[in-house]
Protein backbone atom coordinates (compact mmCIF):
# COMPACT_ATOMS: atom_id res chain seq x y z
CA UNK A 1 0.00 0.00 0.00
CA UNK A 2 1.34 3.44 -0.96
CA UNK A 3 1.62 6.20 1.66
CA UNK A 4 -0.90 8.39 -0.18
CA UNK A 5 -3.58 5.71 0.25
CA UNK A 6 -3.71 5.90 4.05
CA UNK A 7 -6.23 7.92 6.01
CA UNK A 8 -5.01 11.00 7.86
CA UNK A 9 -5.41 9.51 11.36
CA UNK A 10 -3.36 6.47 10.27
CA UNK A 11 -0.66 8.75 8.86
CA UNK A 12 -0.70 10.67 12.14
CA UNK A 13 -0.01 7.46 14.06
CA UNK A 14 2.78 6.45 11.67
CA UNK A 15 4.41 9.87 11.98
CA UNK A 16 4.08 9.80 15.74
CA UNK A 17 5.79 6.40 15.91
CA UNK A 18 8.49 7.77 13.57
CA UNK A 19 7.75 4.97 11.06
CA UNK A 20 7.67 7.62 8.34
CA UNK A 21 8.81 11.21 7.97
CA UNK A 22 6.72 14.14 6.86
CA UNK A 23 9.12 14.66 3.94
CA UNK A 24 8.42 11.04 2.77
CA UNK A 25 4.73 11.74 3.09
CA UNK A 26 4.67 15.06 1.24
CA UNK A 27 6.89 13.62 -1.51
CA UNK A 28 4.50 10.70 -1.93
CA UNK A 29 1.51 13.06 -2.33
CA UNK A 30 3.38 15.44 -4.67
CA UNK A 31 4.29 12.50 -6.94
CA UNK A 32 0.70 11.30 -6.87
CA UNK A 33 -0.54 14.80 -7.81
CA UNK A 34 1.95 15.02 -10.68
CA UNK A 35 0.83 11.60 -11.93
CA UNK A 36 -2.96 11.95 -11.83
CA UNK A 37 -4.05 15.58 -11.61
CA UNK A 38 -3.70 16.18 -15.36
CA UNK A 39 -6.82 14.04 -15.69
CA UNK A 40 -8.82 15.82 -12.98
CA UNK A 41 -7.67 19.46 -12.72
CA UNK A 42 -8.30 19.57 -8.98
CA UNK A 43 -5.44 21.97 -8.12
CA UNK A 44 -5.24 25.63 -9.08
CA UNK A 45 -1.92 26.24 -7.30
CA UNK A 46 0.47 23.51 -6.14
CA UNK A 47 2.79 24.57 -3.30
CA UNK A 48 5.19 21.59 -3.51
CA UNK A 49 8.34 23.51 -2.62
CA UNK A 50 6.98 25.30 0.47
CA UNK A 51 5.22 22.10 1.56
CA UNK A 52 8.50 20.14 1.48
CA UNK A 53 10.22 22.92 3.41
CA UNK A 54 7.48 22.88 6.04
CA UNK A 55 7.69 19.08 6.19
CA UNK A 56 11.43 19.31 6.93
CA UNK A 57 10.71 21.75 9.76
CA UNK A 58 8.12 19.44 11.30
CA UNK A 59 10.46 16.44 10.99
CA UNK A 60 13.16 18.39 12.84
CA UNK A 61 10.71 19.27 15.62
CA UNK A 62 9.71 15.62 15.94
CA UNK A 63 13.33 14.45 16.08
CA UNK A 64 13.94 16.97 18.87
CA UNK A 65 11.16 15.29 20.82
CA UNK A 66 8.72 18.22 20.76
CA UNK A 67 5.09 17.42 21.54
CA UNK A 68 3.21 17.78 18.28
CA UNK A 69 -0.47 17.87 17.31
CA UNK A 70 -2.26 15.04 15.51
CA UNK A 71 -2.11 17.03 12.27
CA UNK A 72 1.63 17.76 12.45
CA UNK A 73 3.43 16.94 9.21
CA UNK A 74 0.30 15.86 7.32
CA UNK A 75 -0.40 17.64 4.02
CA UNK A 76 -3.72 19.38 3.45
CA UNK A 77 -5.42 21.05 0.47
CA UNK A 78 -7.17 24.41 0.90
CA UNK A 79 -10.06 25.58 -1.25
CA UNK A 80 -8.94 28.57 -3.28
CA UNK A 81 -11.30 31.02 -1.57
CA UNK A 82 -9.50 30.71 1.79
CA UNK A 83 -6.54 33.03 2.43
CA UNK A 84 -3.08 31.52 2.89
CA UNK A 85 -0.52 34.26 3.43
CA UNK A 86 1.81 34.87 0.47
CA UNK A 87 0.04 32.25 -1.66
CA UNK A 88 -2.10 33.11 -4.69
CA UNK A 89 -5.85 33.01 -4.00
CA UNK A 90 -7.97 33.12 -7.16
CA UNK A 91 -11.47 32.09 -6.00
CA UNK A 92 -11.58 30.30 -9.37
CA UNK A 93 -11.93 33.69 -11.08
CA UNK A 94 -10.12 35.80 -13.64
CA UNK A 95 -10.91 38.67 -11.25
CA UNK A 96 -8.31 37.37 -8.76
CA UNK A 97 -6.01 35.52 -11.17
CA UNK A 98 -2.90 37.26 -9.77
CA UNK A 99 -4.02 38.06 -6.21
CA UNK A 100 -1.54 37.14 -3.45
CA UNK A 101 -3.21 36.81 -0.04
CA UNK A 102 -1.59 39.24 2.43
CA UNK A 103 -2.81 37.40 5.53
CA UNK A 104 -3.84 33.97 6.84
CA UNK A 105 -7.47 33.02 7.39
CA UNK A 106 -8.12 32.03 11.02
CA UNK A 107 -8.58 28.38 9.98
CA UNK A 108 -5.23 28.50 8.18
CA UNK A 109 -3.56 30.13 11.17
CA UNK A 110 -4.89 27.28 13.33
CA UNK A 111 -3.64 24.67 10.85
CA UNK A 112 -0.21 26.29 10.81
CA UNK A 113 -0.13 26.39 14.60
CA UNK A 114 -0.86 22.66 14.48
CA UNK A 115 2.13 22.18 12.09
CA UNK A 116 -0.09 21.08 9.26
CA UNK A 117 1.51 21.21 5.78
CA UNK A 118 -0.38 23.20 3.15
CA UNK A 119 0.23 21.48 -0.17
CA UNK A 120 -1.93 23.55 -2.51
CA UNK A 121 -5.01 25.54 -3.39
CA UNK A 122 -7.95 23.63 -4.79
CA UNK A 123 -10.16 24.24 -7.82
CA UNK A 124 -13.68 25.54 -7.26
CA UNK A 125 -16.64 27.18 -8.97
CA UNK A 126 -16.02 30.89 -9.48
CA UNK A 127 -16.51 32.61 -6.11
CA UNK A 128 -18.12 29.34 -4.92
CA UNK A 129 -21.15 29.94 -7.16
CA UNK A 130 -21.99 26.59 -8.66
CA UNK A 131 -22.71 22.93 -8.03
CA UNK A 132 -20.27 21.32 -10.45
CA UNK A 133 -16.88 23.14 -10.47
CA UNK A 134 -17.50 23.92 -14.13
CA UNK A 135 -17.69 27.71 -13.67
CA UNK A 136 -14.01 27.89 -12.65
CA UNK A 137 -11.93 30.26 -14.80
CA UNK A 138 -9.20 27.57 -14.56
CA UNK A 139 -11.30 24.86 -16.21
CA UNK A 140 -13.71 22.22 -14.96
CA UNK A 141 -12.65 19.73 -12.31
CA UNK A 142 -13.41 16.11 -13.21
CA UNK A 143 -14.77 13.25 -11.14
CA UNK A 144 -12.18 10.54 -10.27
CA UNK A 145 -14.81 7.81 -10.71
CA UNK A 146 -15.49 8.87 -14.31
CA UNK A 147 -13.57 11.77 -15.82
CA UNK A 148 -16.40 12.53 -18.23
CA UNK A 149 -18.44 13.59 -15.19
CA UNK A 150 -18.30 16.55 -12.84
CA UNK A 151 -16.81 16.46 -9.35
CA UNK A 152 -19.73 18.47 -7.93
CA UNK A 153 -19.30 21.89 -6.44
CA UNK A 154 -18.38 24.32 -5.47
CA UNK A 155 -15.58 22.57 -3.49
CA UNK A 156 -15.10 20.07 -6.36
CA UNK A 157 -11.29 20.32 -6.36
CA UNK A 158 -11.11 19.37 -2.66
CA UNK A 159 -13.44 16.38 -3.02
CA UNK A 160 -11.86 15.08 -6.25
CA UNK A 161 -8.33 15.34 -4.83
CA UNK A 162 -9.22 13.56 -1.57
CA UNK A 163 -11.09 10.85 -3.48
CA UNK A 164 -8.13 10.35 -5.86
CA UNK A 165 -5.60 10.12 -2.97
CA UNK A 166 -3.83 13.33 -3.96
CA UNK A 167 -4.36 14.78 -0.48
CA UNK A 168 -5.48 13.03 2.72
CA UNK A 169 -7.94 15.81 3.55
CA UNK A 170 -8.95 19.34 2.65
CA UNK A 171 -10.74 22.43 3.84
CA UNK A 172 -13.70 23.47 1.70
CA UNK A 173 -16.50 25.99 2.17
CA UNK A 174 -20.23 25.37 2.22
CA UNK A 175 -22.86 28.03 1.48
CA UNK A 176 -25.66 25.85 0.11
CA UNK A 177 -24.07 22.40 0.03
CA UNK A 178 -20.67 23.12 -1.51
CA UNK A 179 -18.85 20.71 0.82
CA UNK A 180 -21.50 17.99 1.00
CA UNK A 181 -22.64 17.69 -2.63
CA UNK A 182 -19.13 17.24 -4.12
CA UNK A 183 -18.40 14.80 -1.29
CA UNK A 184 -21.47 12.84 -2.31
CA UNK A 185 -20.34 12.85 -5.99
CA UNK A 186 -16.73 11.84 -5.22
CA UNK A 187 -17.28 9.34 -2.37
CA UNK A 188 -15.73 11.43 0.41
CA UNK A 189 -16.97 12.62 3.81
CA UNK A 190 -18.00 16.31 3.84
CA UNK A 191 -18.90 18.20 6.99
CA UNK A 192 -20.53 21.61 7.47
CA UNK A 193 -20.69 22.61 11.11
CA UNK A 194 -23.19 24.87 12.87
CA UNK A 195 -23.12 28.45 11.55
CA UNK A 196 -20.61 30.26 13.75
CA UNK A 197 -18.72 27.16 14.91
CA UNK A 198 -15.80 27.84 12.55
CA UNK A 199 -14.41 31.32 11.87
CA UNK A 200 -15.10 32.88 8.48
CA UNK A 201 -12.22 35.35 8.80
CA UNK A 202 -10.16 34.98 5.63
CA UNK A 203 -12.86 33.09 3.73
CA UNK A 204 -13.87 35.17 0.69
CA UNK A 205 -17.45 36.17 1.40
CA UNK A 206 -20.14 34.86 -0.93
CA UNK A 207 -23.32 34.79 1.21
CA UNK A 208 -22.08 35.75 4.66
CA UNK A 209 -25.10 34.51 6.61
CA UNK A 210 -24.66 30.95 5.23
CA UNK A 211 -20.90 30.54 4.51
CA UNK A 212 -19.00 28.01 6.64
CA UNK A 213 -15.54 26.47 6.29
CA UNK A 214 -15.41 22.71 6.84
CA UNK A 215 -13.48 19.45 6.29
CA UNK A 216 -13.58 17.10 3.30
CA UNK A 217 -11.96 13.79 4.27
CA UNK A 218 -11.66 10.08 3.61
CA UNK A 219 -13.45 9.06 6.79
CA UNK A 220 -15.35 10.40 9.82
CA UNK A 221 -12.35 10.00 12.16
CA UNK A 222 -10.28 12.34 9.96
CA UNK A 223 -13.22 14.74 9.83
CA UNK A 224 -13.42 14.94 13.63
CA UNK A 225 -9.64 15.34 13.88
CA UNK A 226 -9.65 18.30 11.47
CA UNK A 227 -12.78 19.89 12.95
CA UNK A 228 -11.16 19.87 16.41
CA UNK A 229 -8.37 22.10 15.09
CA UNK A 230 -10.44 24.63 13.11
CA UNK A 231 -13.46 25.03 15.43
CA UNK A 232 -13.73 27.71 18.10
CA UNK A 233 -14.50 31.33 18.77
CA UNK A 234 -12.64 34.06 16.87
CA UNK A 235 -12.90 37.77 17.64
CA UNK A 236 -12.19 38.63 14.02
CA UNK A 237 -15.51 37.07 12.95
CA UNK A 238 -18.44 38.79 14.66
CA UNK A 239 -20.73 35.82 13.90
CA UNK A 240 -18.32 33.38 15.49
CA UNK A 241 -20.05 31.52 18.32
CA UNK A 242 -18.61 31.52 21.82
CA UNK A 243 -18.94 27.77 22.08
CA UNK A 244 -16.40 25.34 23.46
CA UNK A 245 -16.45 21.89 21.97
CA UNK A 246 -14.76 18.95 23.61
CA UNK A 247 -12.34 16.92 21.54
CA UNK A 248 -14.72 15.36 19.01
CA UNK A 249 -12.03 12.97 17.71
CA UNK A 250 -11.32 11.46 21.12
CA UNK A 251 -15.02 11.34 21.98
CA UNK A 252 -16.18 9.54 18.85
CA UNK A 253 -18.56 6.81 19.98
CA UNK A 254 -19.77 3.88 17.87
CA UNK A 255 -23.19 3.44 19.45
CA UNK A 256 -26.49 4.65 18.00
CA UNK A 257 -28.81 2.50 20.12
CA UNK A 258 -31.90 4.56 20.92
CA UNK A 259 -30.88 7.38 18.56
CA UNK A 260 -33.98 8.88 16.94
CA UNK A 261 -33.58 9.48 13.21
CA UNK A 262 -36.29 11.46 11.42
CA UNK A 263 -36.94 10.92 7.71
CA UNK A 264 -38.93 13.51 5.68
CA UNK A 265 -40.27 11.05 3.11
CA UNK A 266 -42.41 13.62 1.25
CA UNK A 267 -39.22 15.32 -0.01
CA UNK A 268 -38.11 12.32 -1.99
CA UNK A 269 -40.72 12.52 -4.76
CA UNK A 270 -38.27 14.79 -6.55
CA UNK A 271 -35.47 12.19 -6.66
CA UNK A 272 -34.97 11.50 -10.34
CA UNK A 273 -32.59 8.57 -9.88
CA UNK A 274 -34.06 5.40 -8.30
CA UNK A 275 -30.55 4.17 -7.31
CA UNK A 276 -30.18 7.15 -5.00
CA UNK A 277 -33.43 6.35 -3.21
CA UNK A 278 -32.49 2.65 -2.95
CA UNK A 279 -29.08 3.54 -1.51
CA UNK A 280 -30.71 5.84 1.02
CA UNK A 281 -33.24 3.21 2.15
CA UNK A 282 -30.42 0.68 2.61
CA UNK A 283 -28.65 3.20 4.85
CA UNK A 284 -31.72 3.47 7.06
CA UNK A 285 -31.71 -0.33 7.37
CA UNK A 286 -28.08 -0.16 8.57
CA UNK A 287 -29.11 2.32 11.28
CA UNK A 288 -32.10 0.18 12.25
CA UNK A 289 -29.89 -2.90 12.58
CA UNK A 290 -27.59 -0.87 14.84
CA UNK A 291 -30.50 -0.10 17.16
CA UNK A 292 -31.51 3.38 16.01
CA UNK A 293 -35.15 4.31 15.77
CA UNK A 294 -36.46 5.57 12.40
CA UNK A 295 -39.35 8.06 12.63
CA UNK A 296 -41.46 9.68 9.89
CA UNK A 297 -41.29 13.47 10.00
CA UNK A 298 -42.46 16.40 7.88
CA UNK A 299 -40.42 19.54 7.31
CA UNK A 300 -42.87 22.40 6.78
CA UNK A 301 -42.69 24.86 3.88
CA UNK A 302 -40.06 22.93 1.93
CA UNK A 303 -41.33 24.33 -1.40
CA UNK A 304 -39.93 27.73 -0.40
CA UNK A 305 -36.45 26.46 0.45
CA UNK A 306 -34.73 26.60 -2.94
CA UNK A 307 -36.10 30.03 -4.02
CA UNK A 308 -35.46 31.48 -0.54
CA UNK A 309 -31.87 30.23 -0.61
CA UNK A 310 -31.15 31.61 -4.08
CA UNK A 311 -32.77 34.98 -3.35
CA UNK A 312 -30.92 35.50 -0.04
CA UNK A 313 -27.57 34.16 -1.23
CA UNK A 314 -27.68 36.22 -4.44
CA UNK A 315 -28.66 39.36 -2.51
CA UNK A 316 -25.71 38.89 -0.17
CA UNK A 317 -23.41 38.04 -3.09
CA UNK A 318 -24.37 41.22 -4.95
CA UNK A 319 -23.33 43.22 -1.90
CA UNK A 320 -20.19 41.19 -1.08
CA UNK A 321 -18.88 41.19 -4.65
CA UNK A 322 -19.29 44.98 -4.97
CA UNK A 323 -15.75 45.20 -3.53
CA UNK A 324 -14.32 43.87 -6.81
CA UNK A 325 -14.10 47.16 -8.64
CA UNK A 326 -10.52 47.21 -9.94
CA UNK A 327 -9.33 49.80 -7.39
CA UNK A 328 -7.46 48.08 -4.55
CA UNK A 329 -6.96 44.54 -5.84
CA UNK A 330 -8.11 42.21 -8.56
CA UNK A 331 -8.53 42.63 -12.28
CA UNK A 332 -8.53 46.13 -13.79
CA UNK A 333 -9.53 46.63 -17.43
CA UNK A 334 -7.32 48.64 -19.79
CA UNK A 335 -8.26 51.83 -21.60
CA UNK A 336 -10.81 53.16 -19.12
CA UNK A 337 -12.07 56.69 -19.76
CA UNK A 338 -13.11 57.45 -16.17
CA UNK A 339 -13.77 55.82 -12.81
CA UNK A 340 -17.25 54.57 -13.65
CA UNK A 341 -16.03 53.14 -16.94
CA UNK A 342 -13.26 51.35 -15.02
CA UNK A 343 -15.76 49.78 -12.59
CA UNK A 344 -18.01 48.55 -15.39
CA UNK A 345 -15.28 47.26 -17.69
CA UNK A 346 -13.26 45.61 -14.88
CA UNK A 347 -16.29 43.82 -13.45
CA UNK A 348 -17.69 42.84 -16.86
CA UNK A 349 -14.36 41.39 -18.03
CA UNK A 350 -13.32 39.95 -14.63
CA UNK A 351 -16.47 38.00 -13.67
CA UNK A 352 -17.81 34.91 -15.44
CA UNK A 353 -21.45 34.47 -16.49
CA UNK A 354 -22.71 32.69 -13.34
CA UNK A 355 -21.28 35.40 -11.08
CA UNK A 356 -22.89 38.05 -13.26
CA UNK A 357 -26.26 36.28 -13.12
CA UNK A 358 -26.17 36.07 -9.33
CA UNK A 359 -24.96 39.64 -8.84
CA UNK A 360 -27.72 40.90 -11.12
CA UNK A 361 -30.36 38.72 -9.47
CA UNK A 362 -29.23 39.93 -6.05
CA UNK A 363 -29.30 43.54 -7.18
CA UNK A 364 -32.79 42.99 -8.63
CA UNK A 365 -34.27 41.45 -5.45
CA UNK A 366 -32.83 44.25 -3.34
CA UNK A 367 -33.95 47.07 -5.65
CA UNK A 368 -36.88 49.40 -5.02
CA UNK A 369 -40.20 47.75 -5.82
CA UNK A 370 -38.84 44.19 -5.52
CA UNK A 371 -37.30 44.13 -2.04
CA UNK A 372 -40.61 43.37 -0.28
CA UNK A 373 -41.76 40.88 -2.91
CA UNK A 374 -38.57 38.81 -3.00
CA UNK A 375 -35.90 39.52 -0.38
CA UNK A 376 -38.18 40.13 2.58
CA UNK A 377 -40.34 37.12 1.69
CA UNK A 378 -37.23 34.95 1.29
CA UNK A 379 -36.00 35.90 4.76
CA UNK A 380 -39.45 35.06 6.17
CA UNK A 381 -39.43 31.70 4.34
CA UNK A 382 -35.97 30.89 5.70
CA UNK A 383 -37.23 31.61 9.20
CA UNK A 384 -40.26 29.33 8.71
CA UNK A 385 -37.99 26.49 7.57
CA UNK A 386 -35.53 27.07 10.43
CA UNK A 387 -38.44 27.06 12.92
CA UNK A 388 -39.75 23.82 11.46
CA UNK A 389 -36.33 22.13 11.74
CA UNK A 390 -35.80 23.45 15.26
CA UNK A 391 -39.13 22.04 16.43
CA UNK A 392 -38.33 18.69 14.76
CA UNK A 393 -35.07 18.53 16.68
CA UNK A 394 -37.12 18.50 19.89
CA UNK A 395 -38.43 15.10 18.74
CA UNK A 396 -35.50 13.57 16.86
CA UNK A 397 -31.70 13.60 17.23
CA UNK A 398 -30.87 13.34 13.54
CA UNK A 399 -32.64 14.10 10.26
CA UNK A 400 -31.58 11.87 7.36
CA UNK A 401 -31.95 12.31 3.61
CA UNK A 402 -29.84 11.75 0.49
CA UNK A 403 -27.18 14.45 0.05
CA UNK A 404 -28.08 14.95 -3.60
CA UNK A 405 -31.06 13.80 -5.69
CA UNK A 406 -28.63 12.34 -8.23
CA UNK A 407 -25.11 11.02 -8.72
CA UNK A 408 -22.42 12.92 -10.68
CA UNK A 409 -23.72 14.25 -14.00
CA UNK A 410 -21.79 14.69 -17.25
CA UNK A 411 -19.44 17.61 -17.84
CA UNK A 412 -21.35 20.23 -19.84
CA UNK A 413 -24.77 19.23 -18.48
CA UNK A 414 -26.99 21.92 -16.93
CA UNK A 415 -24.56 24.73 -17.73
CA UNK A 416 -27.12 26.52 -19.90
CA UNK A 417 -29.97 25.85 -17.45
CA UNK A 418 -29.22 27.51 -14.09
CA UNK A 419 -32.54 26.50 -12.48
CA UNK A 420 -31.82 22.84 -13.21
CA UNK A 421 -28.31 23.28 -11.78
CA UNK A 422 -29.71 24.94 -8.63
CA UNK A 423 -31.94 21.89 -8.03
CA UNK A 424 -28.78 19.88 -7.27
CA UNK A 425 -28.81 21.69 -3.91
CA UNK A 426 -32.41 20.85 -2.99
CA UNK A 427 -31.46 18.64 0.01
CA UNK A 428 -28.36 20.44 1.21
CA UNK A 429 -29.76 23.99 1.55
CA UNK A 430 -31.93 23.15 4.58
CA UNK A 431 -28.88 22.99 6.86
CA UNK A 432 -27.66 26.37 5.58
CA UNK A 433 -31.05 28.06 5.91
CA UNK A 434 -31.37 26.80 9.51
CA UNK A 435 -27.65 27.12 10.37
CA UNK A 436 -27.51 23.54 11.68
CA UNK A 437 -24.63 21.06 11.20
CA UNK A 438 -24.78 18.44 8.44
CA UNK A 439 -22.52 15.72 7.09
CA UNK A 440 -22.41 13.67 3.91
CA UNK A 441 -21.04 10.12 4.10
CA UNK A 442 -20.76 7.63 1.24
CA UNK A 443 -23.63 5.12 1.41
CA UNK A 444 -23.45 3.17 -1.83
CA UNK A 445 -23.03 3.43 -5.57
CA UNK A 446 -25.40 3.64 -8.53
CA UNK A 447 -25.55 0.99 -11.23
CA UNK A 448 -22.49 2.38 -13.03
CA UNK A 449 -20.44 2.67 -9.85
CA UNK A 450 -20.81 6.39 -9.06
CA UNK A 451 -20.94 7.19 -5.33
CA UNK A 452 -24.17 8.07 -3.50
CA UNK A 453 -24.10 10.26 -0.37
CA UNK A 454 -26.16 10.01 2.80
CA UNK A 455 -26.78 13.34 4.51
CA UNK A 456 -27.33 13.53 8.27
CA UNK A 457 -28.30 16.77 10.07
CA UNK A 458 -28.40 17.53 13.79
CA UNK A 459 -29.48 20.39 16.01
CA UNK A 460 -27.23 23.46 16.34
CA UNK A 461 -23.98 22.74 18.20
CA UNK A 462 -24.71 18.98 18.36
CA UNK A 463 -21.67 18.19 16.22
CA UNK A 464 -20.61 15.32 18.46
CA UNK A 465 -23.99 13.56 18.08
CA UNK A 466 -23.79 14.02 14.33
CA UNK A 467 -20.20 12.77 14.02
CA UNK A 468 -21.01 9.79 16.26
CA UNK A 469 -23.97 8.82 14.06
CA UNK A 470 -21.86 9.13 10.90
CA UNK A 471 -19.02 7.19 12.56
CA UNK A 472 -21.33 4.31 13.52
CA UNK A 473 -22.80 4.19 10.04
CA UNK A 474 -19.37 4.19 8.43
CA UNK A 475 -18.19 1.35 10.68
CA UNK A 476 -21.24 -0.79 9.87
CA UNK A 477 -21.38 -0.01 6.16
CA UNK A 478 -19.31 -2.04 3.69
CA UNK A 479 -17.89 1.08 2.04
CA UNK A 480 -17.57 1.84 -1.65
CA UNK A 481 -14.89 0.95 -4.15
CA UNK A 482 -12.10 3.46 -4.63
CA UNK A 483 -11.86 5.18 -8.02
CA UNK A 484 -9.46 3.64 -10.55
CA UNK A 485 -7.27 6.22 -12.17
Amino acid at each position, binding site marked *: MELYEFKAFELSQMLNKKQISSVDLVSSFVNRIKTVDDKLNSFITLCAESALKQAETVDRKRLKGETLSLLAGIPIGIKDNISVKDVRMTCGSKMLEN*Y*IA*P*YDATVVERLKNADSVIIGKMNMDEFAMGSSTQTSYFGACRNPYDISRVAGGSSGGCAAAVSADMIPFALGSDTGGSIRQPSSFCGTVGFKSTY*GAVSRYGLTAFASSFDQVGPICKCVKDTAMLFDVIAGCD*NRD*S*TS*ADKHYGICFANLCDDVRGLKIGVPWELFESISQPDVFTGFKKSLKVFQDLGAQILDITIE*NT*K*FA*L*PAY*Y*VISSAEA*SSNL*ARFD*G*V*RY*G*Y*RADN*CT*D*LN*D*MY*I*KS*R*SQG*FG*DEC*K*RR*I*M*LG*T*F*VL*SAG*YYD*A*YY*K*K*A*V*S*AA*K*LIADSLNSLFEKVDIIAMPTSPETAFSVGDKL*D*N*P*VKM*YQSDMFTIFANLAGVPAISVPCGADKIGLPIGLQLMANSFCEQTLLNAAFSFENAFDGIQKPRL
Partner: protein
Amino acid sequence: MTIDVDRAAQLSKLTIPDGKKCEFEIQMNDIVKMADILREVGEQPINETDDFARLRQDTVEQSGMTEKGISQNAPSFKNGCFCVPKTVEQQ
Protein backbone atom coordinates in the same frame (compact mmCIF):
# COMPACT_ATOMS: atom_id res chain seq x y z
CA MET B 1 -42.73 39.38 -12.65
CA THR B 2 -39.98 39.78 -15.23
CA ILE B 3 -36.48 41.12 -14.84
CA ASP B 4 -35.13 43.99 -16.94
CA VAL B 5 -31.61 42.68 -17.62
CA ASP B 6 -30.29 46.05 -18.86
CA ARG B 7 -31.47 47.80 -15.69
CA ALA B 8 -30.13 45.05 -13.38
CA ALA B 9 -26.77 45.16 -15.20
CA GLN B 10 -26.61 48.94 -14.94
CA LEU B 11 -27.27 48.84 -11.18
CA SER B 12 -24.65 46.09 -10.81
CA LYS B 13 -21.97 48.01 -12.74
CA LEU B 14 -21.91 45.31 -15.40
CA THR B 15 -22.53 45.14 -19.12
CA ILE B 16 -23.92 42.12 -20.90
CA PRO B 17 -22.79 41.88 -24.54
CA ASP B 18 -25.62 42.06 -27.10
CA GLY B 19 -24.88 38.51 -28.24
CA LYS B 20 -25.56 37.15 -24.77
CA LYS B 21 -28.44 39.40 -23.71
CA CYS B 22 -31.19 37.09 -24.96
CA GLU B 23 -29.66 34.06 -23.17
CA PHE B 24 -29.34 36.04 -19.93
CA GLU B 25 -32.92 37.26 -20.23
CA ILE B 26 -34.30 33.73 -20.60
CA GLN B 27 -32.14 32.27 -17.81
CA MET B 28 -32.76 35.09 -15.34
CA ASN B 29 -36.48 35.14 -15.95
CA ASP B 30 -36.53 31.37 -15.29
CA ILE B 31 -34.85 32.08 -11.93
CA VAL B 32 -37.30 34.89 -11.11
CA LYS B 33 -40.19 32.58 -12.06
CA MET B 34 -38.82 30.01 -9.59
CA ALA B 35 -38.71 32.72 -6.92
CA ASP B 36 -42.29 33.90 -7.61
CA ILE B 37 -43.61 31.18 -5.29
CA LEU B 38 -42.28 33.28 -2.39
CA ARG B 39 -45.33 35.54 -2.80
CA GLU B 40 -47.28 32.86 -0.92
CA VAL B 41 -45.10 33.31 2.19
CA GLY B 42 -46.72 35.23 5.02
CA GLU B 43 -44.43 37.82 6.52
CA GLN B 44 -42.73 36.61 9.68
CA PRO B 45 -41.68 38.80 12.58
CA ILE B 46 -37.88 38.81 12.43
CA ASN B 47 -36.38 39.20 15.86
CA GLU B 48 -33.05 40.92 15.47
CA THR B 49 -31.80 39.42 18.73
CA ASP B 50 -31.98 35.99 17.02
CA ASP B 51 -28.77 37.04 15.32
CA PHE B 52 -25.88 36.32 17.66
CA ALA B 53 -23.38 38.65 16.00
CA ARG B 54 -21.22 40.19 18.70
CA LEU B 55 -19.74 43.66 18.75
CA ARG B 56 -16.12 44.04 19.84
CA GLN B 57 -14.43 46.89 21.64
CA ASP B 58 -13.68 49.81 19.33
CA THR B 59 -9.95 49.68 19.86
CA VAL B 60 -7.06 49.80 17.44
CA GLU B 61 -5.35 46.42 17.06
CA GLN B 62 -2.40 45.20 15.03
CA SER B 63 -3.68 43.43 11.92
CA GLY B 64 -0.39 41.85 10.91
CA MET B 65 -0.85 43.17 7.37
CA THR B 66 1.86 45.34 5.80
CA GLU B 67 1.57 48.12 3.25
CA LYS B 68 3.64 45.97 0.90
CA GLY B 69 1.25 43.05 1.35
CA ILE B 70 -1.67 45.27 0.46
CA SER B 71 -0.09 47.32 -2.30
CA GLN B 72 1.31 44.30 -4.16
CA ASN B 73 -2.23 43.44 -5.27
CA ALA B 74 -3.17 46.96 -6.37
CA PRO B 75 -3.43 47.51 -10.13
CA SER B 76 -1.84 50.94 -9.62
CA PHE B 77 -0.23 52.22 -6.39
CA LYS B 78 1.94 55.33 -5.98
CA ASN B 79 3.21 57.19 -2.91
CA GLY B 80 1.02 55.17 -0.54
CA CYS B 81 -2.15 55.78 -2.59
CA PHE B 82 -4.32 53.66 -4.89
CA CYS B 83 -4.43 55.34 -8.31
CA VAL B 84 -7.61 55.43 -10.40
CA PRO B 85 -8.62 57.15 -13.64
CA LYS B 86 -9.85 60.72 -13.39
CA THR B 87 -13.03 61.22 -11.42
CA VAL B 88 -13.79 64.82 -12.42
CA GLU B 89 -15.04 65.70 -15.87
CA GLN B 90 -13.33 68.58 -17.69
CA GLN B 91 -15.49 71.58 -18.64
